[in-house]
């Protein structure tokens, strides 16, 4: 396992990207991960504001027609290696908004590569943490 990967697993900076049509619950639960009960900073996870600094994108919500180009652009702006985690049913599979008339015909994982899916509606903060930990674990194999 290279030092590079090892360091990445110890210091994942995440960028939260709300792809558009979400019910906001995933977003609130992501924020919840930062509050005293879950405190992901323990693991070096930091929520950062510029996608240039991101090691992982946490995407929530379905991609809508309006946001699809933006989502793609943001992914292109992220420095590689960069992981994409689809948070919640919406991001994983468009969930129940699949048939909405504003939904983008191409789902998230066909628009940009997705490395991990954290299903749930919304996933509990524990689930998100477990998902990220598993993803990082798979890197070091």
């Amino acid at each position, binding site marked *: 396992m290279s030092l590079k990967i090892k360091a990445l697993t110890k210091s994942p900076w995440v960028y*939260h*990207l*709300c792809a*558009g*049509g*979400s*019910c*906001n*619950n*995933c*977003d*609130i*639960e*992501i*924020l*919840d991960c930062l*509050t*005293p*009960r879950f405190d992901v900073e323990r693991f070096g996870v930091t929520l950062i504001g510029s996608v240039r600094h991101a090691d992982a994108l946490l995407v*929530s919500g*379905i991609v*809508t027609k*309006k946001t699809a180009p933006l989502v793609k652009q943001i992914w292109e702006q992220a420095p590689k290696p960069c992981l994409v985690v689809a948070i919640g049913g919406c991001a994983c599979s468009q*969930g*129940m*908004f699949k*048939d*909405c*008339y*504003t*939904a983008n015909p191409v789902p998230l994982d066909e628009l940009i590569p997705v490395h991990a899916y954290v299903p749930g*509606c*919304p996933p*509990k903060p524990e689930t998100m943490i477990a998902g990220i930990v598993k993803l990082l674990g798979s890197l070091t194999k």
Partner: protein
Amino acid sequence: MSDRRIIPIGPYHPLQEEPELFRLEVDGETVVDLDVEVGWNHRGIEKLCETKTYDQVPFVVERICGICSTSHPLAYVQAVEDAGNIEVPERALYIRTLVAELERLHSHLLWVGLAGHFLGYNTVWMWSWKYREPILDICETVTGNRNHYAMMKVGGVRRDILPEHVDYILSRLPEIEKFADLIKGAVLDDPVLHARLKGVGVMTADDIHDYGAVGPTSRASGVPGDVRRDDPYAAYGLVDWDVICVPQGDVFAKAVVRVLEMYETIKIIKGCLEKMPAGEIDSKPKVVAPGEGIGRHEAPRGEVFHYVRSDGTNRPIRHKIRAPTYVNLPTYKTSVIGESITDATIILAAIDPCYCCTERMAVYKHKGDPNEPIMTGSDLVRLSQEKTARLRKEFGL
């Protein structure tokens, strides 16, 4: 010399559920005009509901928003029950009330926290999110999920409240009550908050009537509108509680309404647990007869309105949804104009528009390079926090 600038707030930010774009026009430090643009997160749920069966729709409408996630299903099932003249067992009515009030509790705490953040009291933020967790724990124990409870069903509720749940809820409530006392003391007696929030963003009862505003927004302006009492449903007519209404109409009044409402909510929860009769929780309706119905529920932010029309099949042919923020948001125009931009964020926050926008804003100069933002959203938050700090100093705190 007039120094006119446009401050766009929005359009969207991770925190935000219904992305909105506000264009504040400011002259110097004073807001002179406002334009609101919505629809960034428009998912066409009304149309989507026409493709789902009556049993599936609650799951869709609960995902309109994660914070009102039981208010929409509750209003919806009432609309269907109204359309099809469906009876609901009494026990189910109590359980509905219970879950709805738990939601109000956690939503108000969320608000207190974020309002604290905007005012520069980050401790308040962390604390109230910390004390929100016991409520989410209760929700998880009782309904199986922290946020999307999936309890409402046409004709009743999906899950029963077990005796051990009752004990559990009662055992966790004191924690929340203690925190409510703490917050109440901190809000009602804090001279800084008085100075900071009183007289800010005032809305008169006439404004409220003009815009049809609902919920704490209206009750803080002396309009005692509360669907729970005006048009009693579920068990709201069966337990003892009061409508909180104060006349001032400023941001402080809205905070007071929310804080005091937490006590009423706890009262309702206790009342429900006490009075809940034994029996069925679901009347198992057979069909929804053709017809139309309206369901309303007083969500944490105000009245949620659902209209359902049925043609006798098992799918609605029209489902109209109106969330409280839809009518509360336009009031921002009245409350913010003439105020200083220092207070713009907290006035917006007072509406509780699911906190959004306020985080990603940028100020643009009217003249000169139109793309050069000279002030960002966090600047606005900071302005607000500075003012608090200033006042704190004045009061020697």
